[in-house]
Structure formats: C-alpha cells, structure tokens
C-alpha cells in the first residue's frame, strides 16, 4: 500500500472517482489539500464566493449527470457552502462538499475559524463524515461518492481536520465499502406493478406527473413511451421539466401554483394519476386536501419516506423510476388495446390552446412570456437554461419550453435567489459545447453577480438575461394580489447599471428596449467567447400567470 499524506490521498481518491473539476476557494484549514492540488492535473475553478462554488457544483451535476465537487476552508468558508448544500439536498442533486477543519486537537476549543459544519449540515446532507485519521480518507471518499450518486441522489459532506491532511500513512484505495444501513431498492415489487397496471388499464382519464426523479434515473424516454401507449397527458413538476419534450403532443407543461391551465385542470379531473419521482410538494399540489379529488394515485419513488409523507397513494411503489416504468409498460402492452381517448385528449388540447393564447403579447414593451418564446426559438434544442428564483423562474418554467432532459436547471425546493448564475457556470463547465443561458431577475442576479469574475477568469462564457423591473418582482406580485398593493421593501430603488457592471468585469453588456434589439444582442451573445449580460427592462406591474392563490385547489387558478 502506498504511503502518502491525507491531502495526497484525497486527490488520488477524487481521481479514482473520475473527478475533473473542483469548484472552490482555499483558506487556512484546507491549505495542505490545495498544496497537493498544485501538483495535480485536476482543474480547480476558483470562485468568488463559496455559495457559488456549491451552486456551480450543483449545476455541473444536473447538467452532466455526474457528481459535482465543491471545496472550502473551515468556518466561514464552510458556512458559506451551506445554502448551496441545502439547495442540492432539496432538489436531490449529487454533490460532494469538502471542507477543511481545524486540527483535531483544536476541535471543540472554539479555535480560529472553527465551525461544527458536520453538526450544521446534518439535516441538509444525505450523509456527512468527519475524517478522524488520514488512513480513512480513501474509504470515506468512495463512500461519499457512492452515497451521493445512488438511490435518491443528494449532497454528502466530508470534513477534513487540517492535521489529517498532513498526516502520512499507508493508503488502501482498494478497500471495499459496505453499508449496513444503506441499500436502495431498485426493483419494483411485481405485485405492486400489477396493481398499477390494473388501474391504468381501467383508467378513463389518466395523467402522468413526472418529477425530478424521472431525470435522475434517466427514465425520460421510457416515460414518454408509456404515455404514448397509454394515451395519457404528461404534466411535470418544476424539477421534472424536460422529462418529456415540451413540444410533444401529450406534454401539458408544469402543474402547481404557477402551473398551466392544462396541467392543473387535468390533474384535478384525472381518475388515475401516475406520479413518478416526485414528492407532492405544496407548490405542486395546491391545497392537498383538494388535490386530484376523484383520482386513484400510483406513486413511484425510490425514497420510501416520500410515500405517504404528503399524500397517501392507492398504489405505492418504492423503486427506481426507470425500472418501474419499464415493468409497467411491459405488462401493460400485453393487455392494453386502447387506440383512442378522444374526449380526454380533446379536453387536453382545448386547455393547451388557452396556454398558447397567454403568450400573445399585448401592450407596449417587452413581455416576458413572448421573450421566453423568442429565446427558445434562437437556441438549439440542447442548449441549457438555468433560472434564478421568482417571476423570472416561473416565466421560464411556463413559457420557455424544454426539449431534452437536463437542459432546464432551476432551484425548486429551496427557491434560492442567486442560484441560476453560478449554476449556469457549472453547467457550462460540464457542457462547454452548448449555449448556457441564465434567466435572471435583477434582485436575484445581484446576490451572486461577483462570480462574473470567475466566468472571465476561467473562460466560461454564459449568457445572463436580466428581466429588470428594479423590484423583487415575485414578492411585489404577492403584495399586489394579496396585500392590497402595499409594496413593502420590494422596490430596489438603486440598482447598478448592468451594462457597465458587466464591462467592468471584462464581460459583455447590452441593454435592449425591443424584441428586435434583443434578438440582435442575444445572437451576438451566443457567439461570444466571454460572458454576456443582457439587461431587459420590463414593467414592474407584470404578474406571472396563471397562478393558483395559496391554499386554493389547483382548478381555482387566476388566468388574467
């Protein structure tokens, strides 16, 4: 067994996991690792804020399907990762976060830059480890990647006391890892599959709801095939967007608080609802007591704790989405001979037409739905779109169609403003050949814009489209609709000149006043080899519609 330092062993272990990129920021307690990195050909992307390092790792993971890696020092470096880790946890994104820690003899002594990051991240990681001796490092890294990537993916944190990084020992890289308490169930129970098939055969008004789990298990094409056999519309959650190409005749878009009329009405009227890799979040279901009131629910999820957490399904199936959809489909085609479902699908088409109507812009200025359609037209199908959080996010989710899995990346569960831009950087690192666009708001972008510096330094040319209303737009929308227009603390009053801001970093900036100007600027941005910020002034009075007011059933949506 080779003898080396813990820091060297960490780098060797990361190589064995085929890690190509680390997003991070060094500091005192992680210096030995950065010293070992100096001799390695692994690419380290120096970010300007640890939160961005975590989001970039997350964006990298979502775009590539591989594990993203971020790294920071102890104390404030580690706590700055926390938002990014929580974000990855809520959206089941596989990242490994590596943090420096004060040397073992100083732990618990409130030493300089000491934080109990293992304690802090316990509720927001799938699992976390503190290294107790250098010799443990190969095994812990292997375990961390395995846990992050398998089952329901999620973040794992490794905390490395500084003296375990310098300690030398014999390193065993071939040791097998065993988990007595972690064995994801991949194969569905045949009896449950049979029950699901029976329900689906008898269904008059079936609907499929696809969540992020469909993408995580690479089950998208299987899902579409099942939908086609079944003649069932497919709605997605925000996380599931892209699970079915949104120009597919059976795609009805996103359901939920800002869902499409088609998705929300069809979900409410369905007699059988097949939910795959989704967790019935409050934003997806509206008033849960009134959700799909006459429907029988089949719920497939690899995480058994999701079954029955928010809604009690008639047929629960704890298993991998891909394997389950395939088994259901295989059983179904033996018995199912239905060739048409015209009443239900005609209703779907009528509702879908309503959605198309909403895109038609009225009045002056650039309307966000029309802008989303324009962006889609100009991008190739495999381009990646990330979003910030708020109105920009919902406009993108509703009106910017995704045609492929892993091309729409958004902060769903945590709703993290400032996520989209660093996630775009991570996605661009993963997929340098395709355009990557962050649909942003001015408020969100200002939370992480400092990493324009990283995009220039590391030549990561992404495009940021800022829907600029000088407002915290979604909060303003709620105040407009539910707080009698009492706009409390939403007017940003002073925002920077985004063109000059971009230019000061060495990025490209432009401001557009019409769709024609936007087209020209966006075309230039796609071909640019530096990051581009396009400032698009929009009216602060715009609402994202449709909207289901909080507490309402999905069918009670505001359309205008």
């Amino acid at each position, binding site marked *: 067994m080779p003898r080396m330092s813990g820091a060297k062993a960490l780098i060797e272990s990361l190589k064995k996991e085929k890690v190509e990129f680390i997003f991070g920021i060094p500091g005192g307690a992680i210096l030995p690792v950065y010293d070992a990195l100096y001799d390695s050909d692994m690419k380290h992307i120096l970010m300007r804020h640890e939160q961005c390092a975590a989001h970039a790792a997350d964006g990298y993971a979502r775009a590539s399907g591989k594990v993203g890696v971020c790294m920071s020092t102890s104390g404030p470096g580690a706590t700055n990762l926390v938002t990014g880790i929580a974000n990855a946890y809520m959206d089941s994104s596989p990242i490994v976060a590596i943090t420096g820690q004060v040397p073992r003899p100083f732990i618990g002594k409130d030493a300089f830059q000491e934080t109990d990051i293992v304690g802090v991240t316990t*509720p927001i990681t799938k699992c976390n480890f503190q290294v107790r001796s250098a010799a443990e490092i190969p095994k812990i890294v292997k375990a961390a990647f395995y846990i992050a990537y398998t089952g329901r993916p999620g973040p794992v944190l490794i905390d490395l006391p500084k003296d375990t990084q310098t300690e030398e020992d014999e390193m065993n890289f071939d040791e097998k890892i065993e988990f*007595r308490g972690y064995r994801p169930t991949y194969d569905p129970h045949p009896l449950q599959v049979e029950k699901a098939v029976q329900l689906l055969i008898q269904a008059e008004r079936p609907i499929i709801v696809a969540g992020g789990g469909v993408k995580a298990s690479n089950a998208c094409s299987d899902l579409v095939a099942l939908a086609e056999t079944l003649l069932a519309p497919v709605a997605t959650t925000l996380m599931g967007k892209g699970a079915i190409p949104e120009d597919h005749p059976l795609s009805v878009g996103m359901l939920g608080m800002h869902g499409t009329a088609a998705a929300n009405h069809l979900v409410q009227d369905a007699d059988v609802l097949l939910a795959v890799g989704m967790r019935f979040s409050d934003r997806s279901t509206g008033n849960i007591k009134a959700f799909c009131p006459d429907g029988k629910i089949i719920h497939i999820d690899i*995480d058994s704790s999701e079954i029955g957490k928010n809604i009690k399904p008639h047929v629960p199936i704890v298993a991998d989405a891909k394997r389950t959809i395939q088994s259901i489909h295989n059983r179904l085609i033996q018995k199912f001979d239905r060739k048409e479902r015209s009443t239900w699908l005609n209703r779907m088409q009528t509702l879908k037409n309503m959605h198309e109507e909403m895109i038609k812009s009225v009045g002056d200025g650039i309307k966000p739905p029309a802008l989303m359609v324009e962006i889609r037209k100009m991008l190739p199908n495999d381009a990646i779109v990330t979003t910030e959080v708020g109105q920009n996010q919902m406009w993108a989710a509703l009106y910017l169609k995704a045609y492929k899995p892993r091309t729409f990346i958004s902060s769903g569960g945590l709703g993290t403003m400032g996520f989209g831009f660093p996630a775009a950087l991570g996605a661009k690192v993963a997929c340098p050949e395709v355009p990557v666009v962050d649909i942003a708001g001015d408020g969100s972008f200002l939370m992480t814009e400092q990493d324009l510096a990283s995009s220039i330094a590391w030549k990561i040319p992404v495009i940021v489209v800022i829907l600029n209303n000088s407002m915290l737009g979604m909060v303003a929308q709620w105040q407009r609709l539910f707080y009698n227009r009492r706009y409390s603390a939403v007017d940003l009053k002073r925002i920077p000149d985004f063109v000059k801001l971009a230019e000061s970093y060495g990025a490209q900036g432009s401001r557009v006043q019409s769709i024609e100007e936007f087209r020209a600027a966006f075309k230039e941005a796609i071909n640019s080899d530096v990051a581009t910020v396009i400032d698009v002034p929009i009216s602060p009075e715009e609402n994202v519609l449709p909207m289901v007011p909080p507490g309402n059933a999905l069918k009670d949506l505001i359309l205008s």
Partner: protein
Amino acid sequence: MEMKERIYMISAIVEHKPGVLYSVSNMFRRRGFNIESISVGESEQSELARMTITMKGDEATVEQVVKQLKKLISVVKVSILDSENTVARELALIKVSTPDARVRSDVINYTEIFKGHIVDVAHESLIIEITGDTDKINAFIELMKPFGVREIARTGIAALQRGMRSVKME
C-alpha cells in the same frame, strides 16, 4: 379515516459511532416528531447499538418516523414493536427524603412491595432503584411523593420482542 394517537415503541439498530444519536434526535426535532423517551446502548453485536424510542402519535406519523429513520445512513434496521409481544422495562433512581425513622420504614416497606432496592442510605434520604414498565414506575413515584421526592433519574424504555422474534442484523 380516524387516526388514533397512542404510544408506540420503536426499536432501531444503529451504527455505534459518534454523531448517530445526534442525527436521530435531530431528525425527530426537525420533522416535528415528539419523542417520549429514547434509550441507547450497546447491542449484541459489536459496532452496533440498539435504540429504543417511545413516541406518541397516530399510525401515519409513526410510519413516517420509521421511514425517516430508515433513510438515515447510520440506521441499519428499524421496527415498530408490538406491545403485546414485547418486554419493555425502564429503570428509575428515586431519592426520597426520610426525616425520621417512621418515614424511613414506610419507604423501605413500599420499596419491598415494588421489588425495588435501596441503593444508597444517608441520614435524611434514601435512593431507591426500581425497574419495571412505565406504569409501575409512575405508580411508585406517586406513592413516594407525599414523603418528599428530591430527585428522579429515569432511563427511558429498553425493549425486546418476546421469544424468537427479533430486530437484529443477520
């Protein structure tokens, strides 16, 4: 559907290492589940500890607790114990004031009736060790209250299933 609240006993085999009790208790706190008692100690297998958790809740809640426990990587096995086929015991140490000989002899008598032990004798107090199910211990404490209970320490419930049934790793 009517959901009745009652006391459930859960037996969990967990990895015997630092941070496991924290991750379990933290999960209960964060998801708003209430623990009535929790006891933890070594199990029959090295590297594994047994936790016995009692909690109040309805069936759906306890089902969710079991699933959330199973989700923790350091938790190896979890079962709900069926109270009819389970031996559940708790130990309590109770310090009682005994200002005079009459009180002292009463306390000693009651302790004998409850099959407890006097484990410490001082001039003005006794410490009694008593084991049994929760009801028995509660009853004994009620009985001691008029004499002046100074301190109580209870372990929480430890429980095993009767006969050959078991919650263990193969």
